[in-house]
């Protein structure tokens, strides 16, 4: 299918024994080797993982709370606007406003600012997934728990939480992937020193295009594929619930 052609090309060319992304010359793995020795790239990868882990943990916690709140009080206005708008608006606006905000608050731009920005827009995605999962629950289960004498907290901990756990996990994976892949917002809030994988890829594409980029892309795709497969196993309907 048309959707896959470009990606196949990228993967194929990562094994191409040539500096240019033009002709197919020979099969080689040397671009992967170059990759492993590329200091800047490794640093960026490490940063990306760090940021993604932190951001996904924080946004999963906050997003789950938000999803619960959205489910329980569907007629409220404030929370849905706050939570769902970051998903829908162009990332440029968010990136820019966060840049101004950080500078004005004298927060130095670096990994911390990146994490804070990522959490802001990941909360919405997690909330939507969790809410979808909650909507698929049978409410009589919770009522039954309450009838049997459980306090609200107990009912939550022993009934609701395990039932929505797949949704939370899917949301966490989603947040992780989004954070790992994010380019626009990170671009604005990273500052001169910090670098994440997408930023590194971007500068490589603009400045020096070698199949090393293809190699990095292939690896990144493999990682995301693995994560997506994982998410699919855990919560099969959760991804669709997002739309």
């Amino acid at each position: 299918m048309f959707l896959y052609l470009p990606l196949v090309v990228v993967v194929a060319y990562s094994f191409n024994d040539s500096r240019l992304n033009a002709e197919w010359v020979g099969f080689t793995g040397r671009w992967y080797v170059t990759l492993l020795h590329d200091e800047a790239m490794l640093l960026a990868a490490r940063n990306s993982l760090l940021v993604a882990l932190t951001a996904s943990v924080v946004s999963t916690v906050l997003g789950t709370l938000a999803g619960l709140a959205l489910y329980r009080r569907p007629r409220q206005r404030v929370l849905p606007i706050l939570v769902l708008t970051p998903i829908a608006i162009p990332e440029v606006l968010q990136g820019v406003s966060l840049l101004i905000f950080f500078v004005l608050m004298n927060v130095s731009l670096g990994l911390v600012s990146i994490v804070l920005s990522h959490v802001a827009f990941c909360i919405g995605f997690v909330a939507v997934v969790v809410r979808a999962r909650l909507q698929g629950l049978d409410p009589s289960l919770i009522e039954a728990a309450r009838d049997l004498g459980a306090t609200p907290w107990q009912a939550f901990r022993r009934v609701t939480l395990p039932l929505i756990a797949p949704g939370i996990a899917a949301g966490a994976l989603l947040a992780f992937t989004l954070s790992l892949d994010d380019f626009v917002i990170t671009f604005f809030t990273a500052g001169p020193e910090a670098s994440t994988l997408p930023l590194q890829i971007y500068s490589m594409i603009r400045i020096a295009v070698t199949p090393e980029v293809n190699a990095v892309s292939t690896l990144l795709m493999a990682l995301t594929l693995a994560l997506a497969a994982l998410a699919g196993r855990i919560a099969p309907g959760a991804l669709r619930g997002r739309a």
Partner: protein
Amino acid sequence: MAERRRPLPVQLTRRPRWHLAARLRGWFVSAPPVAYLLVFFAAPSLIMVVAAFRVAGDYGGLLPLVDTDPATGAMRWQVRLDNWRTFFTLEGFARFFADPIYLEVFARSFGYAAITTLICLALGYPLAWMIARSARRHREALILLVVLPFWSNFLIRAYAWMILLGPQGVLSRAVNAALGWFGIGPVQLLFNTFAVVVVLVYVHLPFMVLPLYANLEKHDPALVDAARDLNANAWHCFWRVTWPLSLPGVWAGAALVFIPALGMFAVPDLVGGTSSLMIGNVIKQQFLDSRDWPFGSVLSLMLTLAVLAAAAAAAWVARRGARRA
């Protein structure tokens, strides 16, 4: 059921306390995300709106409203009642409307976003329809297949198209070979409007397919059967039954494509030429290259208004459609 003495009805004896506890719990649950987003989303947005009215600093950025006294280290306000005009101005707005280039970029962004939306609709609707009509057990897998490329990094997808459309790329050579048969000279496929639109469509296609699919899947096949029984031909079946029912999905998908496409900057940056700049690019230039933050904020404010207008329009049409149906 165990034998229990029936107590008084719960509402009469315990309602106030239970009710208060429930409301407190509700606030407790929603407070953390609300607080976080107020600080990191609402506040920055408001600051940006205000920044549009401010003056640029000497080295870029914004002219600071507060300053630290070098002697005492305390913060002191620079802006006073008599000199507020040095800090706040409408100059940015004047420049935006006076110089036609900005309106031109805006119009171009709107155009690109609109074309992208239409093409996504044209490509995505049949795709969603096919998946919705296929055997139930295939559907999940098919949808996953469609969404899967979306999980890969956005830059990689753009880069992949750069390879394909570049002068040596597969598509380029194929198209030019075909055109060569007709005697038309080699056509450049990259670094122009064509490339930008292609990549925009490619990136946003899943956003159109998913809501459409979610909508089409819920259609009751009995409705179409009824139409056929009433002697409608295939076109009528579609146009009179399926299409109107799918309109909410169409609008949702259109909104999900149009609004992000409007604000794109990485795509034109990578695959576009100098004449295909979008508003996102200009904003980025102002903020990071020219460091003219107030003017960048003005542009962002305009973009926000445009997005709000588009969202309001989509919501209004959706509501009107719902009322008619």
